[in-house]
């Protein structure tokens, strides 16, 4: 089976060595292959991001509806509307608007939210830690459990372990997130009264966030000897959203791991390892899994990206103050700059995650460490 290196597909034809050399001089040594690769990939992000900005701009600009009308309401007169349009630059030709938008984005300015009048970049960075925290937890939950279940199912193929896991995965992947979230709240919060229904932390706890990642903040406070209250509360609040958000990725990862593992366990080198007297556990978890993880890593990366952007429903149901919930409200209020900014932000994340996955790939798979 010939695997095409992902590097080959994504590697740009020829890129200037400028950034590479700059990086090298910064580190004071000959650039390694990895470094060159990262530098080149970072440069190649520029056209990708330009495309994203363009797409996002025109998608929103071509959506029917007049932002000025929405902001001022039905009773605004023509003069007021014209004035606001001029303020927002909406009276300019579309191409010119695009140019203005682009030049602002390049300088890191996404504009102000129509509703709150706050800078969108501030609003986003304020909410980003909540979203990342939840997405990370959900990805961890889905990856660890998914890989363990997938390997177990592959090893005991056609046994009850396999059937149970795969039936569970099918149910998991078909379950609507909002429904699962509501069921979880009903069972664990209302009937059993074990976990809170929403929010990031108990409102009665007052603490000054350090990193804005509450779990991390809780750990820091614990290490400082200021009690476990914050950590425990943050953990309790994140459990249900993690499960709700992580179930579909869990199912996908379990299925991918299973099929990839089944493929790998058939390979000759697994037979070689067995014939060399290597313990079965080691054959599975060291020799086979490392190979089987290649496609799984890709799936995990994609899922993580989707979780960052796709947490809208989960965040809304659990009143999780992250980007998803914010975008949900921005859409409801026709806050176009906010929607634009939010989507752009998420897209950049997605692209960066893809880069990380590619790098991880070359760590696991030596065949694509191409010169």
């Amino acid at each position, binding site marked *: 089976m010939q695997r095409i290196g992902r590097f080959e597909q994504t590697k740009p034809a020829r890129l200037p060595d400028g950034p590479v050399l700059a990086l090298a001089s910064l580190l004071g040594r000959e650039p390694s292959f990895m470094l060159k690769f990262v530098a080149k990939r970072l440069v190649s992000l520029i056209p990708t991001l330009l495309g994203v900005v363009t797409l996002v701009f025109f998608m929103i600009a071509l959506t029917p509806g007049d932002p000025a009308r929405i902001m001022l309401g039905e009773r605004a007169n023509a003069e007021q509307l014209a004035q606001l349009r001029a303020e927002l630059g909406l009276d300019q030709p579309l191409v010119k608007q695009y140019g203005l938008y682009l030049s602002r984005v390049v300088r890191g300015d996404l504009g102000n939210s129509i509703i709150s009048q706050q800078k969108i970049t501030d609003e986003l960075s304020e909410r980003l830690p909540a979203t990342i925290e939840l997405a990370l937890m959900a990805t961890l939950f889905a990856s660890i459990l998914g890989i363990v279940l997938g390997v177990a199912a592959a090893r005991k193929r056609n046994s009850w372990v396999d059937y149970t896991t795969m039936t569970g995965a099918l149910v998991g992947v078909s379950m609507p997130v909002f429904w699962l979230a509501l069921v979880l709240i009903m069972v664990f919060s209302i009937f059993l009264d074990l976990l809170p229904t929403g929010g990031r932390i108990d409102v009665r706890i007052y603490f000054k966030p350090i990193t804005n990642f509450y779990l991390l903040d809780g750990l820091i406070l614990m290490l400082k000897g200021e009690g476990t209250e914050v950590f425990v509360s943050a953990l309790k609040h994140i459990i249900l959203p993690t499960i709700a958000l992580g179930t579909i990725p869990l199912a996908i990862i379990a299925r991918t791991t299973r099929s990839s593992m089944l493929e790998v366990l058939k390979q000759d*080198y697994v037979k*070689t390892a067995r*014939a*060399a007297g290597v*313990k079965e556990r080691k054959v599975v978890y060291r020799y086979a899994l490392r190979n089987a993880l290649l496609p799984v890593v890709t799936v995990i990366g994609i899922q993580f990206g989707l979780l960052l952007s796709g947490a809208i429903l989960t965040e809304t149901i659990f009143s999780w103050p992250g980007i998803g919930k914010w975008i949900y409200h921005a859409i409801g209020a026709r806050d176009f700059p906010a929607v634009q900014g939010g989507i752009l932000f998420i897209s950049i994340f997605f692209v960066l995650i893809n880069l990380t996955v590619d790098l991880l790939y070359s760590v696991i*798979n030596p065949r694509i460490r191409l010169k």
Partner: protein
Amino acid sequence: MSDNNPTQAPLLDIQDLQVNFHTRRGLVRAVRNLNLSINEGETLALVGESGCGKSVTAHAITRLVPMPPGDIASGSILFRGDNLLDLSEREMRTLRGSKISMIFQEPMTSLNPVFTIGTQIAEVFRTHTNMGKKEAFEKAVELLDLVKIPAPAKRAQSYPHQLSGGMRQRAMIAMALASPEPGLMIADEPTTALDVTIQAQILQLLSELKERVGMSILLITHDMGVVAETADRVAVMYAGRKVEDAPVEELFANPQHPYAAGLLGCQPSSPQNKGAHRLESIDGSVPDLLSIGEECPFSNRCPNASDRCRAGFPEKSEAGPNHAYWCHHPISNSGVAS
């Protein structure tokens, strides 16, 4: 019932081995009543067409027959006097890779693509001894040198995809030798995937190593040329049964079973084909293992077949010292011989 020289206890002695596969279509009797022995320091070639039970036999020796669907129904496999079929999985595992090692047909796919050659060889050492990581790696480099891989220290750091097919097979052999005391090496078609010049080199290497390390080799092949070059003794299998067993010169000079003779006839280099315009072939094809009863499995293709052949599998006959065959109408009696 074994055919070995009684004065010396064989290294491996397979007695009356039966391996079955339970498939959806029915019971496949892949190996039937097999007796086979390998003496210390001997190279035994196990020869036959694809699907005749050669590889299954090899896997049965290492107990790597997948069960289910496989099933070692009866028989015993004595290795230095111990019946391998009675060992626990843990005891069997300590033998695999140390006293009984295996190399496979496809050096391309038999090495793990995500670990360096050196790591993989060192891993085998570490499995069977309490060597440290560094020491095991140094041993691996020594072995790579032993199998004549140039710049072994550098090559040990290479991944399989950075090596040529021949080099990979050498690395596989090194891995099979990664043990304090190699006893038996099972080489399952070790040269089939290699081109001819590399084949010769690998066979040469195997012969040299056998002398140097003092091990025995079970060579599984369908290539009579390889047999002639490497083996001391040959066992010919057909559809799960052994049909002839003889020292290599004896078999080449005086084959008794029509199938063995047919195999030799297919070989461009065989003496009977000298000056021939056309190579001979064996008419017909291997029967479906599902449909074979107690008859001689070769009877549907055999030019000499009679009702006797279709009634039952023949008893053992001897054509000379250490030369046994199982045929009602051997070549020397029927007069069909070249």
